[in-house]
């Protein structure tokens, strides 16, 4: 018999329109780092408010250690949330902010002071920062303070609702290892609600992707990246090319037909096809990192021709946008710099990639 879930969301239905959850279920094991991903932040807000007790589901139950939270108030649930705007009390010093949940639980002063000092250190906050008001802290210090306060509340479940939004875009991914470290250190069951699948893939053990209020895929990062359940999940996971093709599903392979491909088509093993795919229109997923532009002869399984429209430096790589006749979005390729030949706008190139790097998806 498997161990009972620490947090069990059962068939939750709540919210309206873009914020709606429609029969959503999820089970979080004790100490797990679970990510809830939706492109609409409103859906994440609905889920977080349900778990934290600020909203009630029209249908469904929320259980912690098998006990129904029912009508328990937010303070009685054992859930602490770090929200997108962090919600540090602006009139209280960082020390008072971190001490706040401890004071509400009736700890004595000396114990509170000692625990705040320890928590601040564990969360990477220097002691001299504790006397400052939130307005006098950097975005990262504020985030660390909000995390320390949430952990001080000794939650059963730690909910992180888009916490990295508080950081400048360039600093968001740099903070992910810190989230992982804190998770390892405190071993708290963590629900990370985010609209950025790449953030979730970097830190979470399990990822649940929601679209239109329903779960469309549950899995580990590599599954979501390599074998997404839909084009929407593929797009959430990062930049991608989705080429329209006509698929003829056979026992061990799929035959592809498309005027966009050289020689009018190709073939793909069944293991590179979505399990529910049937013959008919389909989308061929190719990540920009696996597409290579070349001149002359090179061995790739699938090829297409186009013209370079834009060349964009992208860190240590170069990203090129290639227009392909009959396919308005064009194809994006990302190659290590320096490129094997001069890349310039207007140059005709052939793009190639291997079958093993492609994945065939249903259109809807």
């Amino acid at each position, binding site marked *: 018999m498997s161990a009972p879930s620490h947090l069990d969301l059962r068939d939750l239905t709540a919210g309206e329109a873009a914020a709606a959850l429609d029969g959503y279920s999820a089970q979080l094991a004790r100490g797990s780092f679970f990510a809830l991903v939706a492109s609409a932040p409103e859906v994440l807000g609905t889920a977080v408010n349900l778990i934290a007790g600020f909203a009630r589901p029209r249908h469904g139950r929320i259980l912690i250690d098998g006990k129904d939270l029912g009508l328990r108030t937010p303070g009685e649930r054992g859930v602490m949330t770090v929200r997108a705007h962090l919600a540090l009390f602006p009139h209280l010093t960082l020390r008072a902010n971190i001490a706040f*949940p401890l004071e509400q639980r009736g700890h004595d002063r000396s114990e509170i002071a000692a625990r705040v000092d320890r928590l601040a250190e564990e969360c990477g906050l220097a002691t001299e920062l504790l006397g400052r008001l939130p307005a006098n802290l950097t975005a990262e210090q504020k985030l660390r303070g909000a995390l320390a306060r949430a952990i001080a509340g000794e939650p059963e479940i730690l909910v992180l609702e888009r916490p990295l939004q508080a950081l400048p875009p360039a600093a968001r991914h740099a903070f992910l290892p810190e989230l992982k470290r804190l998770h390892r250190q405190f071993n708290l069951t963590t629900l990370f609600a985010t609209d950025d699948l790449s953030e979730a893939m970097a830190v979470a053990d399990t990822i649940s992707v929601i679209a239109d209020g329903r779960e469309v895929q549950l899995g580990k990062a590599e599954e979501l990246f390599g074998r997404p359940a839909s084009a929407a999940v593929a797009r959430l996971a990062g930049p991608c090319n989705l080429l329209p093709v006509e698929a003829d599903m056979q026992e061990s392979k799929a035959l592809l037909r498309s005027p966009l491909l050289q020689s009018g088509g190709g073939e793909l093993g069944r293991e590179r096809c979505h399990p529910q795919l049937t013959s008919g229109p389909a989308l061929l997923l190719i990540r920009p990192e696996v597409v290579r532009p070349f001149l002359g002869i090179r061995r790739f399984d699938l090829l297409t021709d186009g013209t370079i429209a834009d060349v964009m430096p992208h860190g240590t790589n170069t990203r090129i946008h290639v227009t392909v006749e009959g396919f308005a979005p064009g194809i994006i390729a990302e190659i290590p710099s320096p490129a094997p030949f001069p890349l310039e706008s207007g140059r005709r190139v052939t793009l190639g990639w291997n079958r093993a790097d492609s994945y065939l998806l249903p259109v809807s």
Partner: protein
Amino acid sequence: MTASGDNTALPLRGPLAGLAWTSLLLQVAIFAAPLALVLWLSLLAATEAPGDLSLTAWTSLLASPQARAALFSSILLAALTALGATLLATPLAFLIAVRGRVLGRVALGFVIVMWFFDPGLRILGWMQAFKDLAMLEILPASILGGFVAELIASVHAWLPLGILVLALAFGQVDTELLRTARECGATSITLLRRILWPLCHRAVALSAVLVFSGAIGSFLEPRLLGTGEFEQASEWLQRALESETGWPYAAAMLILMLVLAALPLVALTLLHQRKARR
């Protein structure tokens, strides 16, 4: 001034600027003209020689035990009204700002209707209620008339203003702060004491000051509910105005009441400016 400076204020030009200045001048004139007239009246000597100016009315007023007592009684009533209205306004303002949409809106609607409703009629209602309660011998005689009755009526009359100011301020507080405090285990009292009041201290002070400024000049409550035992400044004023020679004294009392009403507002503004400079 160029628009490219570090100014955060938007430049105001064109016909709108003209209208704004006209409106401001009109307001100053409307306020300043009667004030100057009253000030001039207060300096008129109560002698046979018309046009002589003196401080007789002011010195007599300040020397009069009756006038001083009336003024003190008014200040006390206004201060207690401000305190009572602010304390009583807080829970309902909290409800309006924090509770769900429907309940909050119904409560706000009720308060707005209460504010627009003529305070005189409401006080008459209070009088009737007191009489009925007296008949039922529920309330002790001491609060059926006199200072306590005036205080109850005054708080009742000014309570909606306090609620509206506080509800507006509480409504501006980030909901996420309140939710976080709740998650931390804060009770409603803690939420008010540790989060809402400190974050809205200006609004709390403004609410108290506005109620004080309004209540200090109240004349309905003393007229309708007072016993004469504790004469209010407004009652003293009315007696002075009814006497042919009392106008300079009444004018001096009016100026004094105006200063008293404005003093807390000025003090509050200066305090905030000082804090902002820090």
